[in-house]
């Protein structure tokens, strides 16, 4: 019997290996899996919002940031929290939270000590070094005044919003840092959503734009006045100047801005901006190198869907998912629409390949929010995740094929321009329906696998640990920039490992009102070495690092090359397994 069992086992292993080799590494069936470790990690945060969501402002919060605030090498987490129309006059009635990563798989709530618990009605969060002092600050967007929390370097933060001159009192949503004028200091772009006044609330269920499938719901955003966006230029001295009008990014039509990301879309060395506008054309602001931008969303094919339809765009992801050296955009959209993948065919020409890629196959009941390209299985091809959740709790009472709480979508990049939705095969945790909003991506446990932290409405967040299981190799690169840009925002990196050539960029923004790990992670498949890492710094300087071993954390410093190589951590391997 034992021999028989062994024979069967050997046969199975051989069969699997045979199948895997036939498919090739990029097309192998997924073996990575995600586990919900929220409770085990000690995360006790709960997002508050009014259960009925009578007003649109109660549906849109939920940004989350992963950043290393104390420079201990482990990513910490900041969750935004919201008020309700009922509690709006008391900013202390809900508490955002900062969790310190103890580097052992657990987290500790350090909010009160840090002094970042009460920004008001928080929407999104941007983590970044605003003043170039080497410590990651936090910018929290809100309904009403935004807050720039300066990292004091000792575990505490100070609100310096007014001093820095980066407030925007409107309903701010997405925010991102990018050096648009190439002066070495990252500038701040803030998107705004609806011109919403608590003193003049739209009437729930009254009017054409306050109905969904005949059922009364919250009004908007259509039918409500929109709000323009803001660009603050970094003066290099801890202060910023509002240059919105001059730069041509004010959005005079008042589109409903949400997800924002900076990226050098055409590789000309100048940072551009992409803004996902809800129920309207998305913006691609092309940097004209003179302090101004030209909006070219329509002309490039990135404003609307394939058939010219405006979509309910919320989150945005950017990556070179085809290894062409050109970035593509992915935008998460509303129910009955498909999430849109804009392939970058030639410089500044994009094609909506949502159908051709297979992404649109799963359109239907999903309302997509936080999203990112990341190589979850380390096969060398960036995959795509979208977290979902409806806006109307009322849908649970009608038969429309969509529910309020929705599961995650995980698209495996097949390496040939197509994707396959594989959430069911990568862990039960992805299949649990939630009302998700922001999602941040990063290697929380420094084990070489990208994890995901999701802020859900009406309850606790989700911390998904990626256990790998794929046995693929990887490399993670942290860039140390210079001057006022120690994060090296805007730096582009090429990684060559045998026949695999990948590009990535240190980007701020993306997802839905969230901030992800700024380290660049590259899956390598079965390749064990990296032949070349080419860093294109924001000032144009190019540095190369050659011949490094896979499965390491590399730190590359401007002008100094590879300054540190660290293996993955092993002291937190038990949690969640």
């Amino acid at each position, binding site marked *: 019997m034992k021999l028989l069992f062994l024979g069967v086992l050997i046969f199975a292993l051989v069969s699997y290996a045979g199948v895997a080799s036939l498919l090739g590494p990029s097309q192998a069936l997924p073996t990575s899996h995600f586990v919900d470790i929220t409770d085990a990690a000690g995360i006790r945060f709960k997002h508050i919002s009014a259960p009925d969501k009578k007003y649109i402002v109660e549906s849109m919060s939920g940004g989350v940031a992963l950043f290393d605030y104390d420079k201990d090498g482990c990513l910490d987490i900041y969750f935004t929290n919201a008020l309700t129309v009922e509690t709006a006059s008391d900013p202390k009635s809900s508490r955002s939270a900062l969790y310190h990563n103890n580097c052992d798989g657990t987290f500790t709530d350090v909010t009160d000590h840090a002094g970042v618990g009460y920004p008001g009605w928080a929407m999104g969060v941007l983590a970044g070094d605003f003043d170039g002092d080497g410590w990651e600050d936090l910018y929290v967007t809100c309904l009403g005044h935004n807050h720039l929390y300066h990292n004091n370097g000792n575990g505490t933060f100070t609100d310096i919003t007014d001093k820095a001159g980066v407030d925007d009192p409107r309903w701010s949503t997405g925010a991102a840092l990018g050096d648009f004028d190439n002066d070495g200091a990252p500038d701040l772009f803030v998107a705004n959503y609806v011109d919403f006044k608590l003193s003049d609330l739209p009437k729930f269920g009254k*009017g*054409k734009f306050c109905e969904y*499938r*005949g059922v009364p719901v919250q009004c908007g955003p259509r039918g409500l006045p929109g709000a323009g966006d803001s660009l603050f230029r970094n003066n290099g001295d801890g202060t910023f100047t509002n240059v919105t009008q001059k730069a041509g990014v004010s959005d005079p039509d008042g589109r409903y801005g949400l997800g924002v990301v900076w990226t050098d879309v055409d590789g000309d060395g100048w940072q551009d901006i992409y803004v996902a506008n809800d129920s309207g054309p998305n913006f691609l602001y092309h940097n004209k190198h003179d302090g101004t931008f030209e909006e070219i969303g*329509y*002309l*490039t*094919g990135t404003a*609307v869907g*394939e*058939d*010219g*339809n405006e979509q309910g765009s919320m989150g945005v992801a950017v990556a070179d998912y085809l290894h062409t050296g050109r970035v593509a955009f992915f935008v998460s959209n509303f129910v009955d629409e498909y999430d849109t993948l804009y392939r970058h065919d030639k410089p500044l*020409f994009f094609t909506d390949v949502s*159908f*051709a890629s297979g992404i649109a196959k799963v*359109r*239907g009941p999903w309302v997509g929010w936080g999203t990112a390209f990341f190589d979850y299985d380390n096969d060398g091809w960036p995959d795509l995740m979208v977290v979902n959740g409806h806006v109307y709790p009322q849908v649970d009472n009608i038969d*429309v094929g969509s529910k309020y709480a929705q599961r995650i979508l995980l698209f495996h990049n097949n390496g040939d321009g197509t994707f396959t939705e594989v959430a069911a095969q990568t862990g039960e945790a992805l299949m649990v329906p939630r009302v998700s909003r922001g999602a941040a991506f990063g290697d929380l446990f420094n084990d070489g696998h990208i994890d995901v932290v999701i802020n859900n409405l009406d309850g606790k967040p989700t911390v998904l640990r990626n256990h790998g299981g794929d046995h693929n190799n990887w490399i993670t690169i942290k860039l140390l920039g210079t001057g006022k840009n120690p994060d090296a925002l805007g730096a582009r990196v090429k990684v060559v490992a045998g026949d695999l050539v990948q590009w990535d960029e240190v980007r701020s923004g993306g997802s839905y009102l969230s901030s992800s790990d700024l380290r660049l992670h590259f899956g390598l498949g079965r390749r064990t070495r990296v032949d070349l890492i080419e860093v294109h710094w924001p000032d144009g300087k190019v540095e190369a690092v050659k011949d490094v071993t896979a499965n390491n954390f590399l730190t590359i410093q401007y002008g100094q090359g590879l300054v540190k190589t660290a293996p993955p951590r092993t002291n937190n391997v038990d949690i969640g397994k």
Partner: protein
Amino acid sequence: MRITVSAGARVFRAYLPRVPILRSSTLVLVALVGWRSARAQAPIAAQFQHAVRLMDAGDWQKAEQTLQVVLRAHPNDADALNLLGVATVKQGRVDEAEAIFRKATKSNPSLPAAWLNLAQLYEQRDDKEHGLQTLQEGLSHAPHDPRLLSETATLLADRGQFAEAVRRLQAVPSAARFSDYWELLGRVYLSNSDFAKAEEALLRALHGKPESVTMLRQLTGIALKRGDTARAWQYVARALRLAPNSPELLYEYAQVSLQNKLSSEAVLAMRKALLMEPDRPDFLFFLGDALLDTSDFHEALPYFRRYVELRPDDPRGHLSLGWALFLEKSFPEARQHLEETLRLDAKQADAWYHLGMIAYETNDSEKALEFLTHALEVDPGHARAHWGLGMVYSREGRYEKSRDEFEAAAHLDPDEPKVHYQLSQVYARLGESERARSELRLYQEAQKKSDERIKLSQRLPSGVRGGQPRP
């Protein structure tokens, strides 16, 4: 459009309620006034009044007897003779009544009532020629009598002699030109397709009868005939305010609303109409169609389904159901109904088009090209089929071909924003950036017009809202 504006003599009568012989009380009243002015003998007057009351009560026999009493005293009394003629007709003695009316006209040739009743008697015998002659004879004695002139005009219009009919009406004294006069004049003009004058006359009539739903409906038809859909909407909306629970009127209102791109209005009205007549096929179909024009297109399904149940052999039902299913992304079932459409009528270009778009959506370019091309073979002016072909070619990177198809679509439907958007993309890819920008401008202009129409559709007249039903 279901609403028809009658033109031509044949339909003229449908819009004109005839003066019935039964309207004896009016004639009697006229007679009584005339009689009183000529006679002062109380007992005979009382008999006369008694006869009138009996006639009003429908007691023709007793009325006849009473009038015989009056006539014994005054054998040539034209009014009494006229009333006796009416009572006689009512008792079925038509020939005898004819003789009595003739006697009345001889007795007093200037008594319009007698001439009118005699003419009507001939009309009822289908002897319109004789009826017209009678009226004209009466006019020779009472040339300015409004009733004689109106009736003559009616008969003339019936025969298609519109100019003559108008001439008769223009002879009516100004003091007698009340609302009915203008209404009649309006209808005569309408029957002669003189829409401007018809509208003018009917508006004057409406001034006297501001709550006439019939007139407002006629005005709606006139405005539509003149191509003034906005004005038509104003008229029909006003009519609906007066008769908010009329299914027919709700239907008309919905149709005109849709012509004005007021989809929401159309939908609301039809929902209400269907509450009253839930299984009326034309209502079901129309509401489904109107819903397809809105963001609530998924609500169209149950209406089309029911329509197909009621009219399984109507290709339009399967076509519309197929399209609604396509919008719902239920492609297999959509395909089924579209194929059924073609089985019933192979020349339904829309069905070929929709099948083509299903193939496009399911990434089958070859089939998409086949079906869309077929749509154009059936209907070369099918703008959407050109657009669909353009989309397929664009997806395949065949930008020159897609440009040609989008240009064809734009030529056929220049107000469609999406075509201009696609052209901007294609020209950009062909390196024609100026053309691309120009098309983008056209797209944004067309999109703005489309948005304005959406905003316009939010305008709601009173009388439609309230008690909004759910399917």
